[in-house]
């Protein structure tokens, strides 16, 4: 970040010395004014609508070349490295080798957070006075993100975790805890324990874009916390709506056990 800033300053210096006219334009490009999103009736940024990622994180959150059935993709992990503890790095490698059968998503299980966000399926965000509700097309996952109460005491294992939201300026910050150790972050074997703690940040960047950031913390598996970043895109089709991807039913149908 620092380096990028210095480079842009150098560029400004060169341009200024040549053609002073473009100074105003340069300032605009370097630091655009923050987008001011439309508001809900209670004054919160309006995140409602149908959204979807355009990336390959569901297959692999890190840089990866194409594999059969898997598009190549640049990673969504900040710095690309995941700070696994030594035993966990070995486990990740083993998961990767066994991924075709071992990925929990292959069993049609709920994919956990944040993986549900970057599954290649749309989801719809709704807002009320005390909650943000997200319904996902993929295996009809639901997240009820209350913004008016703390987490429940104790650890309650769950696939999607328990979500609690709060607003920091125009950003919806969602604290997600109470996970089990059964889900993976992607189809490449990146994993966590039941000590996983995720903090998500949803910030509107324009009429059709949300900047999404997830901070991952799990002292049983990683040496420090790390982050993913990506963009959520608004589905533009006038008739866009959430349909079904009932993985388990489709699997049973394929096996001849459902008409």
């Amino acid at each position, binding site marked *: 970040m620092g380096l990028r800033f210095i480079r842009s300053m150098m560029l400004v210096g060169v341009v200024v010395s040549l053609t002073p006219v473009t100074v105003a334009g340069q300032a605009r490009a370097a630091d655009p004014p923050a987008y001011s999103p439309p508001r*809900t*009736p*209670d004054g919160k940024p309006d995140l*409602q609508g149908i959204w979807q990622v355009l990336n390959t994180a569901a297959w692999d959150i890190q840089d990866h070349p194409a594999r059969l059935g898997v598009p190549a993709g640049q990673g969504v992990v900040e710095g690309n490295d995941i700070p696994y503890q030594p035993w966990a790095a070995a486990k990740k490698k083993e998961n990767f080798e066994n991924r075709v059968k071992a990925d929990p998503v292959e069993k*049609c*299980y*709920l994919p956990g957070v944040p993986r549900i966000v970057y599954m290649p399926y749309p989801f*719809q965000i*709704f*807002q*009320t006075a005390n*909650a943000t*509700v997200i*319904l996902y097309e993929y295996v*009809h*996952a*639901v997240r*009820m993100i*209350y913004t*008016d*109460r703390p987490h429940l005491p104790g650890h*309650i294992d*769950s*696939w*999607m975790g328990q979500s609690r939201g709060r607003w920091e300026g125009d950003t919806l910050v969602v604290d997600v805890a109470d996970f089990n150790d*059964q889900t993976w972050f992607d189809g490449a074997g990146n994993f966590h324990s039941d000590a996983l703690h995720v903090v998500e940040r949803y910030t509107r960047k324009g009429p059709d874009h949300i900047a999404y950031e997830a901070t991952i913390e799990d002292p049983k598996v990683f040496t420090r916390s790390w982050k993913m970043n990506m963009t959520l895109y608004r589905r533009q089709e006038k*008739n866009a*709506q*959430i*349909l*079904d991807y*009932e993985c*388990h*039913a489709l699997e*049973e149908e394929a*096996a*001849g*056990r*459902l*008409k």
Partner: protein
Amino acid sequence: MIGRYFNLTIATAAVLAAVSLPPVSAAGQTQTADGKNWNPPRTSDGQPDIQGFWANQGRRLSTYNVEEAAEPTHVLLSGVQTDSASLIVDPADGKIPYQPWARAKRTETFENHTNLTKWEYVDPHTRCFLSGVPRAFYQGTFQIVQPPHYIVILQEFNHGSRIIALDGRPHIGDNIKLWMGDSRGHWEGNTLVVDVTNNNDKTWFDLVGDFHSDALHISERYTFVNPDTIAYEATFDDPKVYTRPFKMALTFGRNVRSEEAKSYELFEEACLEGERNTTDMLRLLDSNPK
């Protein structure tokens, strides 16, 4: 667990007995049955505010078999007491007006629903499939959420959900079938009217095989009688399976009230993820057909 259910049975029976004693309360109900006497609070987009937690609490509670609500074993196991009435209010005999082939199919399922020799006899709920409409309403608690221009219904069972668009948009194309159907609604006073199309042919109305095809069209009316009561009536039309449309009636009550509702929440009910024997059983049936 059995003890708890048994106690509940007694308690429920006692409550029902108390309710049935003074005829005055019945009259009180009919007075407001059209919902006109209730002036509800409003959401920001002007809808009657009916958010909160609800469950099927009418006299037709037991939904083991929609044609005969109170199957004695189910009453014993569930702790749910009823007056044995069918959920079906039209036709008057309380039976689904099946075409002959469809009645034969339903009878076969009924006779085999505790003798599972084929996957066709296994309740879709047991297999962790979504409930469909209206079964979602009599499988435990559901929550109504009202973001602007929508009604969202969340089920605790198998985290099912329905998104009811209120903005007048057309239904999706005929070839897309959905487990929970495609819902479009509008308000008529305190009555929410919902048109449900695009249903698939894989859900049942109950445990014993009452069924429909993918031609099913449901017209629902939710009348908000008072802050704690919804009179629900749905008309089912399916020319592939029935000889005429039929009507089902249910009463939903708030099952979490006032202050408690502010901290209450639905929990994750990960049906498939916790499932440990049904899929294996079905595979076994596959390899050992009887």
